[in-house]
């Protein structure tokens, strides 16, 4: 097949062999190692993670205290999949999975927020600080300067997916074992085995394996909500809750990672680490995941009323960014990350202290003079000779 050179001339050069990496809607290839990347549903989070989630990996989210923002991340993850026509798989024992699917937000059609603000700045020239007119604007949100190459969508939380659109999506829900299911993996709590068996069967039936050749390749998005929560306790387990979770949860993540490595699939798993008494469980889960984040919400804490954090709803801690088929891992520009939830956007950005604005219009030296009458030698302050 003839191809074009950079000057527009047609050459007879033919690329040898076929491209092994198939084109999948809603994904792109990494420049460093040709890894297929997909969006998490939050563009600013994609930038933190290195331009997207690598396909075949697990993103572990350590839930905030009330689980609000962890559940929100799952919604964005699934909504992004729905917008890109990716098949979805949602598992939860804490909530009814169907109710979460019904609350998926709709993507915003056009996002011209950043462009319009920059245009306004150009039209409003500076008269006093004119030397700073042409300086580059400081971008707080990661990745906002290259919004033209953004992978994912922005979503409007006030608008949810319509029942017709939801019916047209390819999704599978799991809230517990069914009659004909058989557990795999030899877990102490067989419910983990049931879920793993179901995932493995879904990967096989949907031809998501890297060796499979379906008519159209796609990415399976696995969302597992609150894995290891108290509702996962099985009465048949003889050991204590923590002892069971300590053995089963890392093993489940290891088995899941083994399945994903051979598939065009990626998983987002939320875990309520704040409920585990043994700190080793959190460490082991982070180790068995490819990437791990912790959401710390300000709700119910002293930070909620702290004026320093008045613009934000919580802090984002990057716990782990493992190397995926490469030597060096991408490191975010800043680790001081905070998130804020607006009606039409969920933004993760560098934590900035608010500017210290004085409420009084008086000059500072006037405040000193008016407040220090006892220090002046003369009682007559109106004399022009007074210093």
């Amino acid at each position, binding site marked *: 097949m003839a191809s074009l050179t950079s000057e527009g001339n047609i050459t007879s050069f033919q690329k040898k062999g076929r491209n092994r990496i198939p084109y999948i809607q809603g994904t792109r290839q990494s420049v*460093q*190692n040709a890894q297929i990347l997909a969006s998490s549903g939050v563009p600013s989070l994609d930038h933190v993670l290195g331009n997207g989630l690598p396909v075949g990996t697990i993103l572990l989210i350590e839930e905030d205290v009330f689980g609000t923002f962890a559940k929100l991340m799952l919604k964005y993850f699934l909504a992004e999949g729905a917008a890109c026509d990716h098949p979805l798989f949602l598992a939860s024992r804490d909530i009814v999975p169907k109710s979460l699917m019904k609350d998926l937000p709709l993507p915003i059609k056009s996002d011209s927020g950043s462009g319009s603000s920059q245009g306004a700045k150009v039209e409003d020239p500076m008269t006093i600080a004119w030397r700073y007119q042409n300086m580059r604007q400081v971008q707080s949100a990661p990745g906002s300067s290259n919004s033209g190459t953004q992978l994912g969508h922005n979503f409007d939380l006030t608008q949810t997916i319509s029942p017709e659109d939801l019916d047209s999506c390819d999704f599978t829900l799991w809230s517990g074992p069914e009659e004909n299911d058989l557990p*795999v*993996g*030899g877990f102490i709590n067989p419910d983990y085995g049931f879920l*793993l*068996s179901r995932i*493995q069967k879904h990967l*096989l039936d949907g031809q998501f394996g890297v060796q499979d050749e379906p008519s159209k390749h796609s990415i399976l998005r696995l969302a597992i909500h609150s894995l290891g929560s108290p509702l996962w306790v099985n009465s048949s387990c003889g050991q204590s809750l923590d002892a069971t979770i*300590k053995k089963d949860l*890392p*093993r489940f993540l*290891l*088995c899941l*990672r*083994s*399945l994903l*490595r*051979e598939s065009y699939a990626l998983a987002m798993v939320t875990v309520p680490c704040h409920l585990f008494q*043994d*700190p*080793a469980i959190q*460490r*082991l889960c*982070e*180790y*068995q995941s490819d990437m*791990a984040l912790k959401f710390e919400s300000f709700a119910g804490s002293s930070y909620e009323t702290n004026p320093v954090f008045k613009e934000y709803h919580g802090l984002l801690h*990057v*716990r*782990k*960014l*493992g*190397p*995926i*088929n*490469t*030597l*060096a*891992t991408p*490191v*975010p520009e800043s*680790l001081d990350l905070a998130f804020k939830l607006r009606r039409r956007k969920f933004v993760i950005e560098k934590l900035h202290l608010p500017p210290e604005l004085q409420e009084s219009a008086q000059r500072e030296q006037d405040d000193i003079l008016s407040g220090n009458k006892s220090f002046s030698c003369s009682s007559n302050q109106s004399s022009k000779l007074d210093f």
Partner: protein
Amino acid sequence: MLYSKMAAALIAALGLDQPNVQSSSFAVLERGNADSSFVLSCFMWECLVGRPARESRANGLLLPRTSESSTAVLLLSCHHSSAHYRNQTLKLGLNLTSLSQKGLFEELDLMKVISESLSAKKLSAELVDEQGTIAVKNLFLSVRNKLMKMRENFKSVCLIIGNINDIVTSGVSLEHVFIFINYLQGLLSEISNMSLVISSHVTDEDENERLLGTFIKNSSDLTVLVSGLQTGLSKDVSGCLSVLGQSVPSGTYHYRLMDRQVKMFSPGSSSV
């Protein structure tokens, strides 16, 4: 220049460029959220590229002979997939795919074995028992047979095991893993010119991983400790690497992982 310096800094820090280090056992322990797979990739680079290049230069040859004078490598990867190590070593200038065709490199991917054990394929049935856990005895026999076959064709062999703690995570008891490591140590005297490199992740809060890390460290000639920075992540420094050994001067280094290179330097100084 054939001798690449991409992994040479790490090899020099570990003293592997010194002679008479063939029959040795090495322990690589990683702490926190640090990843030590780059150390194993450097070991593979040293066995397959570094040492043959040095020996050929010592013999006055321009090109190393990839024949019976080379070191063959068997990789048993438990935490990362085999594709991860292939891509990583490719960044260091080592093509494992072409070397495996010459018989110099073989791999056992335990993640693939676990994945197949969950499905109906059961291609590696001899490595998985009826409960779905890894059959350690069969795994040892498989490793031993491969090593002996490689030793017949090449001068020396090296067994590299990545993150052996994942065998415990997969359901095998800690005692069986101790016995497995003990048997592997026994291969060092059974097979001449053999090296053994075992890496493990150590979670301080988990007693099993702590015991396993201590056991591996005590039964090795040289220990490499890989950990992250205590203050978090940094673009200039990827982590901290400590070397403890009898024949090598102990030291603590900072390392930086770049796209195609591993840089080592003393804490607080720039790369040398």
